[in-house]
């Protein structure tokens, strides 16, 4: 691809690694050469770097695709997902899943990222709803706002919740921050 095809969210291959353009700015001084100033994120490691390309330079587009898959089970070394259309299964290594394992409920639908047909990453829904399996008792009479206690959800993840949350209730969690959002009444 040509640098003039660079856009936000364009996917590039650099030194055998897939990158996504997260910030993009075109500048062109006077009658000079156009500069494409980008912040690019390594889609496997997540590291972000600044790169500037000049007009006329050529780039390699990354062969990246994302597929919706359901979480099946953890094996100890990895996490197995299934394409509910084709029943194809893939395993993601623990280091790729990282902290997202805290939100991996059975059958949760995620976007699995493939780079040259190899699963290299996953992207979670922005929020998940999970059941509280254990919670510290709320202290009666303490009505100050912003006071929290510890609770645990079905994956074993520990989270700070308001005092009124009880075992068996469902809570909404922001997967980007890992924080409690609200109680979900069903």
């Amino acid at each position: 691809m040509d640098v003039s095809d660079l856009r936000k969210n364009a996917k590039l291959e650099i030194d055998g690694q897939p990158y996504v353009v997260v910030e993009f700015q075109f500048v062109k001084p006077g009658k000079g050469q156009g500069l494409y100033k980008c912040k690019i994120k390594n889609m496997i490691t997540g590291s972000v770097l600044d790169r500037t390309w000049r007009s006329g330079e050529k780039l390699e587009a990354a062969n990246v695709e994302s597929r919706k898959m359901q979480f099946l089970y953890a094996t100890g070394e990895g996490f197995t997902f299934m394409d509910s259309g084709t029943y194809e299964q893939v395993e993601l290594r623990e280091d790729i899943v990282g902290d997202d394992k805290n939100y991996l409920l059975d059958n949760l639908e995620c976007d699995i990222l493939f780079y040259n047909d190899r699963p290299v990453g996953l992207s979670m829904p922005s929020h998940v709803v999970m059941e509280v399996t254990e919670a510290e008792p709320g202290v009666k009479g303490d009505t100050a706002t912003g006071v929290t206690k510890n609770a645990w959800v079905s994956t074993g993840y520990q989270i700070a919740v308001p005092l009124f949350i009880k075992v068996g209730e469902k809570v909404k969690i922001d997967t980007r921050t890992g924080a409690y959002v609200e109680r979900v009444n069903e």
Partner: protein
Amino acid sequence: MTAKRPPGLPWPARVALWDRALGAVRDRLRAAGMREVSTPVRVAAVAIEPFIEPLTAPPGYLATSPELAMKRLLCRGSGSIFQISHVFRAAELGDRHAEEFHLVEWYRVDDELAAARADVEALVDVVLAAAGRPAVSWSTFAILDVVAATLGRELRGDEDAEALVRVAASVDLELRDPGLAARDPDVRRLAAWTAFFSEWSDRDLDPWLRDRGGGVHLCDFPPALAALAEVRDVGGARLAARFESYVDGVELANGYQELRDPAEQAARFAAVSGLRDAHQLPALPIDERFLGDLRGFGLPRCAGVALGLDRLLMIAAAAERLSDISLALGSPGR
């Protein structure tokens, strides 16, 4: 999650801004004794530039600038003229770039560059005033003095490609351009100076301009960056009678004492073609009818300027992006 962009100026305010600005520009240029013209948007050949790509409109192109069409009118005795034209430059997309924008272009016959520079200041004034903003104060610098101030290196302006690459390397500017390997020394020189100017602008000039704020004209360009300006003796040095104008660090206008020599003009087009070739950019036709007019009728002595109107409105509205003031609703740009 990135924050959503503010929506820019409300639509009625945009319409009012464009209405006042277009009126103010016309009034000012007419008051200066110029006639308004309107030349075709679809042209057989554009004014070729190393890094300006036209949009094709078979069997021709959409104009990247009205320059050659207006000069052909000047050759035919139009007298001083101006135009507010729609121009198109492929793949220029950014906060301060759009594939389609408005150039105010004007030519003062039998006049000097200083008068054209004063026009820029006057147009900036009237448009800022139309938007209820205070006037800016201006200063003028020789571009090589700003190079010296920012890099600590004195350049004469006539350095050849190899010398310029060495100077650039000594101040950590890496010039890499396929044109540097061209056989023709004119192409190498154009490649080196264009690359130098691009890299220096981005790293050193832009911050320098932003720190100064207000209006700045840069003048007396190295001959390799003359574009379509006349080269003349300035205190013993050969320098181009060209200026670039900036307001608050935003490049706004580009003016020339216009080149009139057809042989020199043909040589400059050839160097641009050579550099485009080195970059494996698509070959573009040379406007032979324009060269024919330079040879046949001759271009009267004149000073000309192109000013980016959208950017001026952006500044007048204290906006950050062209899209904040644009009237384009769903333009087909990618």
